[in-house]
């Protein structure tokens, strides 16, 4: 598909026909969750209509069939992020779940009194609070890499924080509040000079960038299906085998055990060791369908299209008197965050909504970075493969309208 035919893409997303207050839905809340193409919805329907079954332990046909497609999905995910081994792909319920697994398993094992964990000032609460709590419990210290006023990760400051007490560096690939792309390749390289493993919170990265975990050489990479055109309720934790092998299990229950008696329990091998309970087969197959869909269109094409939208939005909104962009990193993806004069984001969002435009307002679960800018929140428009230049024009017109109403 070249040149990129956004109208053809839009046809694949049934929700885009939805009317809001009688107007066409303009969905610009993609950083919160993306919409689903028909092929993903169809996969879910087909699964429940023809193949639904619990997996792995069944001898019967349906169970074996479901197991096969489930494990094939895992393989496709492995290939998509170019992990070395299939067993390095752990199925979780979302990024938050993946990071909690990390904090409780990796963290519990490796972070001790006096140790340090490094995050950035840009993190979503999900990549902050688990580490904050871990450090509190372990009497370790959470170190924060500061950002500049463009919302850019300060690499030199980061390097200063690295030392022999650092047990993990964990930063977002792309900031959900500001859209800044962090220099993760350099971050990883630097940490590895000190033999420190690095985890990437890819919740926003996976949908805007091609990810190759071997090329990045990251030790862990986490993301959510629902922000990546897949159903809710599934996430991935990629981890290097050498780390995953040593890590103790997180949740306990069926599937993740090998032998169980009242005296003693032995745990299953990777990846099952980390997958307690009935997995969400539906959502994993849905994620697989989403991957197929994305591969067909091509992540390069998607990224190029989204970049065009981002640049156009920046250019057009900039023309409005009093507009303030929050986060102006040189490298940015998918997200534009702004304020209109002194208008409270909630006021702006309420009016924008009435034009059928879905933007997010507030702190975007990243309070600390807003504290940095000393603001209560922003208006955030975030883009996906199906957004259009016309939608950006609508947004711009609406923002002007908001201005007149409140000034």
């Amino acid at each position: 598909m070249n040149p990129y035919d956004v109208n053809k893409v839009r046809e694949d997303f049934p929700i885009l026909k939805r009317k809001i207050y009688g107007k066409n839905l303009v969905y610009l809340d993609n950083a919160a969750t993306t919409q689903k193409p028909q092929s993903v919805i169809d996969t879910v329907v087909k699964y429940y209509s023809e193949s639904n079954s619990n997996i792995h332990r069944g001898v019967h046909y349906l169970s074996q069939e479901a197991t096969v497609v489930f494990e094939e999905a895992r393989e496709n995910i492995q290939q998509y992020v170019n992990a070395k081994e299939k067993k390095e792909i752990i199925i979780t319920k979302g990024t938050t779940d993946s990071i909690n697994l990390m904090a409780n398993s990796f963290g519990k094992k490796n972070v001790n009194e006096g140790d340090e964990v490094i995050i950035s000032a840009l993190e979503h609460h999900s990549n902050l609070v688990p580490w904050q709590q871990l450090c509190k419990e372990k009497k370790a210290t959470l170190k924060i890499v500061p950002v500049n006023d463009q919302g850019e990760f300060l690499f030199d400051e980061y390097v200063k924080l690295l030392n022999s007490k650092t047990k993990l560096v964990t930063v977002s690939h792309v900031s959900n509040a500001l859209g800044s792309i962090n220099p993760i390749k350099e971050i990883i390289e630097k940490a590895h000079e000190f033999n420190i493993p690095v985890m990437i919170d890819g919740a926003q990265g996976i949908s805007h960038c091609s990810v190759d975990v071997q090329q990045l050489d990251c030790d862990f990479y986490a993301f959510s299906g629902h922000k990546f055109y897949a159903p809710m309720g599934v996430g991935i934790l990629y981890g290097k085998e050498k780390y995953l092998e040593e890590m103790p299990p997180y949740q306990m229950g069926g599937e993740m055990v090998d032998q169980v008696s009242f005296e003693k329990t032995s745990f299953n091998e990777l990846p099952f060791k980390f997958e307690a309970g009935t997995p969400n087969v539906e959502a994993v197959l849905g994620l697989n369908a989403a991957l197929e869909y994305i591969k067909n269109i091509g992540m390069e094409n998607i990224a190029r299209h989204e970049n065009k939208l981002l640049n156009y939005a920046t250019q057009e909104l900039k023309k409005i008197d009093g507009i303030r962009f929050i986060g102006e990193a040189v490298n940015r993806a998918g997200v534009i965050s702004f304020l209109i004069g002194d208008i409270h984001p909630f006021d702006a969002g309420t009016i924008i909504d009435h034009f059928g435009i879905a933007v997010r307002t507030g702190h975007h679960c990243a309070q600390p970075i807003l504290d940095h800018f000393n603001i209560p929140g922003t208006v955030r428009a975030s883009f996906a493969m199906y957004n259009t230049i016309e939608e950006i024009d609508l947004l711009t017109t609406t923002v002007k309208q908001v201005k007149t109403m409140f000034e």
Partner: protein
Amino acid sequence: MEVESIRIVEDEIIEEFAHLEGWMDKYNYIIDMGKNVPVIDTKYKTESNLISGCQSKVWLYAEFRDGKVYFSADSEAVITKGLANLLIRIMNNQKPDAIINSDFFFIKKLGLKEHLSPNRSNGLMAMIKQMKLYALVFKTKASQTSGE
């Protein structure tokens, strides 16, 4: 009796709203309202007077004088302030019982809940709850005092 006087103000507001065509006018009306809210004294803009569950910060304060309740409020967001003012216009100068028993009829009548706040983000429901709570506290105190 008191409930009736609440109803009168409610009818007034409903009447005012009736003249507004389209949602833009309605919002403009609420925004205007927001400019005239009886602003809370800064010394009461405390953590404990913050109403939680709103996307913008909202402070609500109440005093009890001569058997009646007087509210003041503030918010970072103008729409929220406007909504607060609507509520205050109705509930100010009322006896606790009237507030406690009010069904906030006008909210339904104006479709405010559906139209403006299908969820908790603007805190309309949270403000009402807080107002009723204030009224309840005052009533309880009053009955204890009179009981002495």
